[in-house]
């Protein structure tokens, strides 16, 4: 429990450290997409195309499931996502056959479930500091910032075992708002 809380705190702290415009996923808007409605001709807004953030939302769970697979392409243990898959609708996946619509909000309870169900995913991999940084960069799709490098180095300088250090970095990367919403 303390470990999860630490990860969440770390994640929040790092989001604050990262400058806007460099993968700042909080710029994303939310609300499900459907049902755009056309305004009558001649009543168009002046800009051709614009949007602004209103609330935080995740990508569809099926996209995130793919993203998890691709984040560890060379070291993927299929069973590590079995528990995640079994709880997919609780994490917001849709299944209209069973009456589940997509649920794309991202709040503390879903974040907690997300981290809990992915702890096994973060228990395998290249536990070295390079391995942890590679995972984070692959998951986020960008070069890590200097602040992020320093934080990971700091974690790897701690007394924790390498698998635990790796687990902290891994959980930070895949529970990052940038990962789930972008």
């Amino acid at each position: 429990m303390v470990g999860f809380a630490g990860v969440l705190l770390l994640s929040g702290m790092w989001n604050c450290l990262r400058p806007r415009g460099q993968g700042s996923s909080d710029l994303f808007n939310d609300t499900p997409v459907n049902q755009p409605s056309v305004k009558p001709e001649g009543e168009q807004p002046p800009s051709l195309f614009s949007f602004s953030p209103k609330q935080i939302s995740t990508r569809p769970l099926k996209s995130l499931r793919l993203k998890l697979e691709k984040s560890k392409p060379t070291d993927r243990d299929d069973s590590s996502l079995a528990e995640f898959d079994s709880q997919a609708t609780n994490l917001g996946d849709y299944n209209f056959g069973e009456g589940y619509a997509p649920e794309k909000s991202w709040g503390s309870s879903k974040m907690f479930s997300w981290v809990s169900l992915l702890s096994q995913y973060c228990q395998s991999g290249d536990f070295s500091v390079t391995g942890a940084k590679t995972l984070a960069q692959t998951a986020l799709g960008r070069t890590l910032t200097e602040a992020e490098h320093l934080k990971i180095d700091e974690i790897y300088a701690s007394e924790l075992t390498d698998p635990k250090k790796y687990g902290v970095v891994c959980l930070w990367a895949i529970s990052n708002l940038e990962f789930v919403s972008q």
Partner: protein
Amino acid sequence: MKKLIGLGISLLFLGVGSLLTTQFAAEEPPYTNQQLAAYMRHLATPLIGRSLKSNEAFFIETQGFKQARFILENWMKSPEFETSFKVMIDDLIRTGGNSSNGIDFDLPGRIAKYIVRNKLPFEQIITSEFCVDQDFTRVNCDTNAPVGAGVLSTRAFMTSHTGRFNLTRASALLNKFACMDYPVPFSLEPPAAKEDLLPEFRAESLGDLSGLNAPSFDDRGNTNCYSCHSQFAPHSQLFVKYDNTGLWDANANGVQDPERDFGLSQGNFFASHYANPERSASETGVFFGKEVKNLNEAAKALAESKFFYQCGIRNTLAYVFKLDERQAGDINTRLLDQIIDSFGDEKPSVQELFTRTLLHPLVIESAMKSLGIKP
């Protein structure tokens, strides 16, 4: 060593690609290659379910638009893009998932995947006369209707949009694939003749409704029933032979069952708007002013209009950038029409629709601005 070989192959691959992609060569763009790479980062997950790779970012940052286009086109060839388009369609029409009560909720998604996999025209999402089974072989659709109409002619779509008078099905067709709500301009969809409709739908004011079995206003407080229902009538008629589980029956007649709620016909069917029993039993309708024999012809009439493509582009941008209904509705039609013009005379595939849309200079610039991607 493996990484070096991989990078070498990537360099060769992308180098050849850049030679092949000259069509989009343009003037100096108003953004840097770094900004373009940041923009592509926002496209990767919705399109292929992964983040931008470091080598992709490198090539975009060093070679710019041509590489971005080459990479995007490669993404469109991946099985992951098939899945992404399925997710987009599922989200749009509220389908996808397990089979339930004999209804295959994943059928619309398979049609979407099949269309992408075979690079069929985008319009086939609503006009294809076939459905596809688990092995992606063409089969008849599961409604038992004589002719299919893409995802519309699936029991999953039909059951996700049941409602009295088939109003929900007609609304979904117009709303999801033309991005319009009722009433649409009469110049686009001429109203049904008042005398052909049930008396309740002829009313244009509260006074007209006295003594009739109908609500006095709709959920928007509108007391002019005729303004919307005169257009609902020819659209909802296309669904009159589909029951509440999506099964088609030639014998359905659309006549109001006097023993049941307003809008319900006999059996599991929904009532027609039309007063004449012969007319109420016919699934012929009118769509955007064109007389159509059935749902398939209506879908084709819709797909022939620019509104279908405008809506497809709105839905694409809404899916990729997570726009809400208002934001998608606010996209300027001049931009949409420019993208449509770029299709030329050919009917675009899903891949072409996405590529032309997401690489349109104004889309890139506008999205960069909204996403806060700065030099």
